[in-house]
């Protein structure tokens, strides 16, 4: 591998950009692919990126090549420094997620309640790019307070987060849908919100609800396109 290719690869990874290294295993020749649509192996690279799995492929010349896909580590952004979050954050961290908790209410967002978490006592909306919502981010709205959850949900849908969940009953969610439609969110985007949040496992305690949520996030990550 050439050092300049490795440098560009590491820069892409640092910028949370998906990247693929194509290696000819006979000669060692390599190329870095940041825009698969412009590559002769566009289809194979596209499939590898969706599955998140590196694999062998064949060039049109018949050469065997290895496609090493580099996807950003998943993030979990939680709005609401609530009881559920106190369990959800450490479980998600242990599964490899970079966790950020956002809650403008300083009584909730206190370091004593959330040690070792990236905790931000601020609002999350379309105007808060520093949180870095993207396609490799799972988002959970847990405050149960529309004035905090709604703008954050709008931002998460706009950013294309791979999972968007919101706490609340079916009745609460029906009211939420009305508000979001009034705010200009289209039906397709609304359909992406998982609500009531979490897999239906009969979760009763805040910690069990956290388990239901992280299981649903895992399914969204590993089986994209399937709704359990």
């Amino acid at each position, binding site marked *: 591998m050439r050092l300049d290719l490795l440098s560009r690869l590491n820069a892409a990874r640092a910028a949370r950009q998906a990247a693929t290294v194509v290696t000819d295993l006979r000669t060692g020749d390599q190329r870095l692919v940041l825009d698969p649509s412009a590559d002769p192996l566009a289809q194979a690279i596209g499939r590898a990126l969706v599955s998140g799995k590196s*694999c*062998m492929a064949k060039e049109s010349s018949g050469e065997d090549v*290895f496609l090493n896909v580099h996807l950003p580590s998943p993030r979990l952004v939680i709005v609401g420094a609530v009881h559920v979050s106190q369990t959800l954050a450490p479980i998600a961290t242990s599964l490899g997620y970079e966790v950020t908790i956002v809650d403008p209410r300083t009584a909730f967002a206190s370091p004593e309640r959330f040690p070792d978490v990236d905790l931000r006592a601020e609002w999350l909306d379309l105007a808060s790019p520093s949180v870095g919502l993207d396609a490799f981010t799972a988002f959970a709205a847990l405050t149960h307070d529309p004035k905090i959850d709604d703008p954050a949900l709008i931002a998460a849908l706009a950013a294309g987060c791979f999972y968007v969940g919101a706490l609340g009953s079916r009745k609460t969610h029906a009211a939420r849908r009305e508000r979001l439609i009034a705010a200009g969110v289209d039906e397709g985007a609304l359909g992406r919100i998982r609500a009531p949040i979490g897999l239906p496992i009969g979760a009763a305690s805040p910690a069990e609800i956290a388990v239901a949520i992280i299981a649903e996030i895992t399914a969204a990550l590993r089986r994209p396109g399937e709704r359990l």
Partner: protein
Amino acid sequence: MDILSTAEAWMREGRSVAIATVVETWGSAPRPAGSHVVIDADGAFEGSVSGGCVEGAVVGEAAEVIASGEPRLLEFGVADETAWRVGLSCGGRIKVFVEKLA
């Protein structure tokens, strides 16, 4: 620091570096395709391509790849002659590509 950042940092320190990558697995291989080990000319290494079973052999091959500059494709598995020396106890097979960073 992650493996590929380590490789870049070692290179910028003036060390000679090889990168080993799992490119294919069969059966119950412990590390998936795409996993890396970075190795320097003194045999220092970071990362893993197996559960620890074949790292020693990979580090040895890396020294030769660093010396020659020519990449190599290695195969390890229970069906291999080498298995008796450095085999995968899990019963899987892996192919590892070793290349010099230049």
